[in-house]
C-alpha cells in the first residue's frame, strides 16, 4: 500500500503521457501514411499503452481519499453524476463535432475519427474508474473484514484480465467466456451489498433513484457510442482491452441498477425507517441533554415534544408531579384536561399506564363530549419517585397501538433516568460546595488556634491540637493580663462539624470580651473576672444561642507568676493533671463544676467553684480534652486518666515539650490502627524557678 502511495504523484502524468502514446500508436497503426517511411506498426505497443493507461487511471482513482463523508450517500452520488455526466456530454459532443467536421472536410475524416475514438476510450476508462471506486465506498460501507478481502481479490482478478491480451494474444473463446462469466458473477455478488440504502430518508431515496438513473444513462451513452463505432468501417484499430473494460462496465452498471431497484423497493417502507430513526434520534437528544447539564424543565419539554412527534398525537399534555414545575399543554385546553384527569381519578386510573382506543364507546368519556377517539396515558416514575404523567390523544379511534405504548415506555424511562441523573449531578455539586465551605471553615478555625505560645522565663508551655474532622470542637487560647498574669482557656464543644466550630469561635469571642479590664473596678482584684465569675457570665451568654442538647466544657486558669500561684475553675471539663514537685507526687485536681449550657439560668453559679493553688518551681500542669483519655485501642479500651497519670510520673522531670512528645508517642502507640473518634488537644505547662528580673 505504501508503494502505491509513493506512486500516487506520478500516476496522473503517466496516464496523460500514455494516453498521448496511445493516440500516437493508434494514428500510426491506422494511418501509416501520416509518417512516411515507417513500416506498419505491430499491435503490442498500442495494447501496452492502453494497459498502462488504464492501470494508471484505476490506481490513481484507487488512491484518492475516501469519497464517502459520514453518511452523505446522496452527496457521493451527486458528485459522481457530475463527473460521468460531464464525460458523457463531452463524448457525445466530440462525436457530433467529428460528424460535423467529417461532412465539411471529408479528407480528414478517418484521422479525426481515430482521435475522437481514442479520446472517448480515455474518457470511458476515467468514467469506469470513478464509478467503480465510488461503488467501492458503498460496498465497503460498514463491511466485514471478509468482504474487504473479497473486494481486493476482485480488483486483483480484474487487473489480471488487463494482462491477458498482452500475453495470450488470442485467448480461446471458451477460456475467455469462463473468465468473463466468473468475474461477472463475482461482480454481481458484490453488487448485492447495498447496506447504505437503509440509511436514506424518504427524500434522499427519491433523490438517489434519480441520480442512479442519471449514472446509468451516462453509461448507456458511452455503450451506445462504442456499440455503434464497433461496426464502423472507419475503425481500423486493434481490439481494445475489452475484457477488462466490459467487466468494469458491467459491474458499474449492475451495481447502479441493483442499487436503483433496492432503493425503489425500499421507498414504500422509507416512512417506517424514518420514524424509527426519529425515535432513536429523540432518545439520543434526551440522553445528550443530561450530558449538557440542562435543567429538568428542558428535559420535560424535550420528552413532551419528542413523544408528540413520534406518536403523532393530535393533542397532549404533561402533568408534572414536582411542585413549581409548570404543566405542558399541546392543542389542549386546561379545563378539558382537568375533566379527563378527574374522570381517570374516579375510575382509579391515575398514574398508571392506560390505553383506550375507543373513547366514543366508553361511558365516562362519552359524557365529556370530547373530539378525541383514542387516549394513551404514560406515567413517569422510578422505583422510588413519581414524576408525573403524559396524556396523548388522537381524533380517530384505534389511533394508538402496542408499538406506541412501548416507545412511550422507553421515552418515559429515559426521561426519568435523565431527571434522576440531573438530580444526582445537582446533589453532588451541592456536596462539593459544602465540602468547599468546610475547607474554608477549617481554615478559619485554624487561624483561631494561637500560633505563638506565650514565652516567659517563669514557665514553659507546649501544645498539641488535632481535629478528627475538617472542623473540630476543641479549643484553647491564651491571654496576657496586666500584673504578670496569664489566662489559659481550654474547652470542648459537644458535637462536631460546622455548628461545633461556630460555638468554638463564639467561646473565643466570649473569652476575649470578658477578659477585658473593667474600668469601674474598685480594686485590683475586681479588674478581671475570677474564673468562676467568668464561667457564670459565659454560661449566661451561651444560654440563648446554644441548641438544646448542646453544651460546652471548659477550664479557665489564671496564672499569677509574680506571686507564684494560680486560680482555676472547671466547667465540666476534664480534670487537671498535676505534678507537685515538693511532694514528688502526680495527682488530679478533682474539683466539682458543671458544664456550660446545661443549666441556663442564674442557679448555674452555684455549681462552679474556684480552686487556688500556690505552685512551686518544677511543678507540671497537664491540661487536655476528652479526645486524649477516650482514645481507644484495638480491644476498645480507653486510654484513661490512670495511664495519663503514669505517663507524667515517668516524664515530669523533662521539658514541657518533651513531656508532651512522650505522652503523644504513648497515645499513638496505644491507639495504633484505630480511627480517631474525637479531637485531641494537649497542653503541658511547666513552672520554673523564679529568676530575678534584669535591672532589679
Amino acid at each position, binding site marked *: 500500500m505504501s508503494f502505491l502511495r509513493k506512486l500516487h504523484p506520478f500516476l496522473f502524468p503517466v496516464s496523460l503521457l500514455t494516453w498521448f502514446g496511445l493516440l500516437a500508436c493508434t494514428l500510426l497503426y491506422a494511418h501509416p501514411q501520416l509518417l512516411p517511411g515507417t513500416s506498419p506498426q505491430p499491435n503490442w505497443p498500442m495494447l501496452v499503452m492502453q494497459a498502462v493507461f488504464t492501470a494508471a487511471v484505476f490506481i490513481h482513482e484507487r488512491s484518492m481519499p475516501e469519497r464517502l463523508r459520514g453518511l452523505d450517500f446522496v452527496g457521493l452520488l451527486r458528485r459522481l453524476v457530475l463527473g460521468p455526466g460531464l464525460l458523457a456530454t463531452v463524448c457525445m459532443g466530440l462525436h457530433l463535432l467529428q460528424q460535423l467536421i467529417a461532412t465539411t472536410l471529408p479528407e480528414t475524416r478517418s484521422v479525426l475519427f481515430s482521435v475522437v475514438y481514442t479520446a472517448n476510450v480515455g474518457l470511458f476508462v476515467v468514467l469506469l474508474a470513478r464509478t467503480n471506486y465510488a461503488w467501492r465506498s458503498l460496498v465497503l460501507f460498514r463491511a466485514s473484514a471478509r468482504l474487504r478481502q473479497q473486494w481486493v481479490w476482485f480488483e486483483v482478478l480484474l487487473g489480471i484480465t488487463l494482462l491477458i491480451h498482452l500475453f495470450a494474444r488470442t485467448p480461446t473463446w471458451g477460456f475467455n467466456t469462463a473468465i468473463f462469466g466468473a468475474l461477472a458473477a463475482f461482480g454481481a455478488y458484490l453488487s448485492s451489498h447495498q447496506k447504505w440504502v437503509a440509511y436514506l430518508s424518504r427524500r434522499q431515496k427519491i433523490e438517489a433513484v434519480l441520480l442512479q438513473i442519471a449514472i446509468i444513462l451516462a453509461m448507456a451513452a458511452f455503450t451506445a457510442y462504442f456499440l455503434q463505432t464497433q461496426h464502423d468501417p472507419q475503425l481500423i484499430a486493434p481490439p481494445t482491452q475489452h475484457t477488462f473494460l466490459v467487466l468494469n462496465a458491467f459491474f458499474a452498471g449492475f451495481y447502479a441498477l441493483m442499487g436503483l431497484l433496492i432503493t425503489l423497493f425500499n421507498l414504500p417502507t422509507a416512512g417506517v425507517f424514518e420514524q424509527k430513526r426519529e425515535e432513536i434520534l429523540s432518545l439520543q437528544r434526551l440522553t445528550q441533554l443530561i450530558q449538557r447539564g440542562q435543567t429538568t424543565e428542558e428535559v420535560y419539554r424535550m420528552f413532551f415534544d419528542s413523544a408528540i412527534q413520534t406518536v403523532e398525537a393530535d393533542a397532549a399534555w404533561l402533568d408534572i408531579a414536582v411542585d413549581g414545575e409548570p404543566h405542558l399543554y399541546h392543542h389542549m385546553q386546561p379545563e378539558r384536561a382537568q375533566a379527563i384527569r378527574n374522570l381517570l381519578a374516579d375510575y382509579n386510573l391515575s398514574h398508571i399506564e392506560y390505553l383506550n382506543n375507543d373513547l366514543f364507546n366508553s361511558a365516562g368519556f362519552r359524557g365529556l363530549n370530547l373530539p378525541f377517539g383514542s387516549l394513551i396515558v404514560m406515567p413517569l416514575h422510578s422505583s422510588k419517585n413519581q414524576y408525573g404523567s403524559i396524556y396523548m390523544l388522537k381524533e380517530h379511534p384505534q389511533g394508538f397501538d402496542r408499538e406506541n405504548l412501548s416507545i412511550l415506555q422507553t421515552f418515559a424511562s429515559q426521561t426519568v433516568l435523565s431527571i434522576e441523573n440531573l438530580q444526582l449531578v445537582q446533589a453532588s455539586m451541592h456536596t462539593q460546595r459544602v465540602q468547599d465551605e468546610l475547607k474554608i471553615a477549617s481554615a478559619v478555625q485554624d487561624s483561631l488556634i494561637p500560633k505563638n505560645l506565650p514565652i516567659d522565663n517563669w514557665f514553659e508551655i507546649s501544645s498539641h491540637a488535632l481535629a478528627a474532622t475538617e472542623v473540630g470542637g476543641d479549643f484553647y487560647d491564651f491571654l496576657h493580663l496586666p500584673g504578670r498574669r496569664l489566662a489559659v482557656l481550654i474547652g470542648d464543644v459537644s458535637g462536631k462539624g460546622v455548628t461545633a466550630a461556630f460555638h468554638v469561635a463564639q467561646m473565643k469571642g466570649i473569652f476575649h470580651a470578658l477578659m477585658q479590664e473593667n474600668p469601674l473596678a474598685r480594686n485590683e482584684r475586681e479588674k478581671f473576672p475570677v474564673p468562676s465569675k467568668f464561667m457564670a457570665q459565659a454560661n449566661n451568654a451561651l444560654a440563648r444561642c446554644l441548641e438544646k442538647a448542646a453544651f460546652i*466544657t471548659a477550664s479557665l486558669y489564671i496564672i499569677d507568676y509574680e506571686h507564684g500561684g494560680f486560680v482555676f475553675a472547671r466547667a465540666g471539663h476534664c480534670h487537671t493533671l498535676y505534678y507537685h514537685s515538693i511532694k514528688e507526687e502526680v495527682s488530679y485536681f478533682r474539683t466539682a463544676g458543671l458544664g456550660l449550657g446545661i443549666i441556663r439560668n442564674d442557679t448555674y453559679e452555684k455549681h462552679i467553684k474556684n480552686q487556688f493553688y500556690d505552685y512551686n518551681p518544677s511543678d507540671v500542669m497537664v491540661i487536655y480534652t*476528652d479526645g486524649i483519655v477516650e482514645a481507644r485501642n484495638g480491644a476498645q479500651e480507653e486510654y484513661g486518666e490512670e495511664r495519663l497519670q503514669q505517663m507524667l510520673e515517668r516524664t515530669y522531670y523533662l521539658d514541657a515539650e518533651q513531656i508532651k512528645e512522650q505522652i503523644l508517642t504513648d497515645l499513638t502507640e496505644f491507639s495504633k490502627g484505630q480511627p480517631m473518634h474525637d479531637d485531641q488537644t494537649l497542653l503541658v505547662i511547666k513552672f520554673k524557678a523564679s529568676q530575678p528580673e534584669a535591672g532589679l
Partner: protein
Amino acid sequence: MKITQHATESTLTLSLDGELDASSSVLLDTELSKPEILRNQKVLIDCRQLNYISSAGLGVFISHLQSFQDAGVKLVFFNMQEKVHNVFEILGLDSLMTIVPSEAEAEAI
C-alpha cells in the same frame, strides 16, 4: 444500642444496652420525646449494659432535664458502670441528676 422498656403503673424503666453515641442517641431522644412519658412519676434508666456514653448521649439527657423537672417526673439512673459514672461526674451532672447504685434504691426514691 438497644433500648428495652418496662412499664408499671407509675414507673417507666428504660434499659440501655450498648454504646450511646451520636447515632444511637437519636433513638433515645425519640423515646424521651414521647409526650406520654411525662405521665409517669418516675423514669428509671438502667445503665448496667451501658458501656459508653458520648457527649451527644449526655446531650439527650440534658435536653430533657428541664421538661422532666417542670412536669415533676423524677429521672433516676442506676446500675451505672464506673467508667460511665466518671463521665457524668466530670461534667458535673451527678449534682443535677439522681444516680443510685441499685434498682431497689431507685425504686425507693
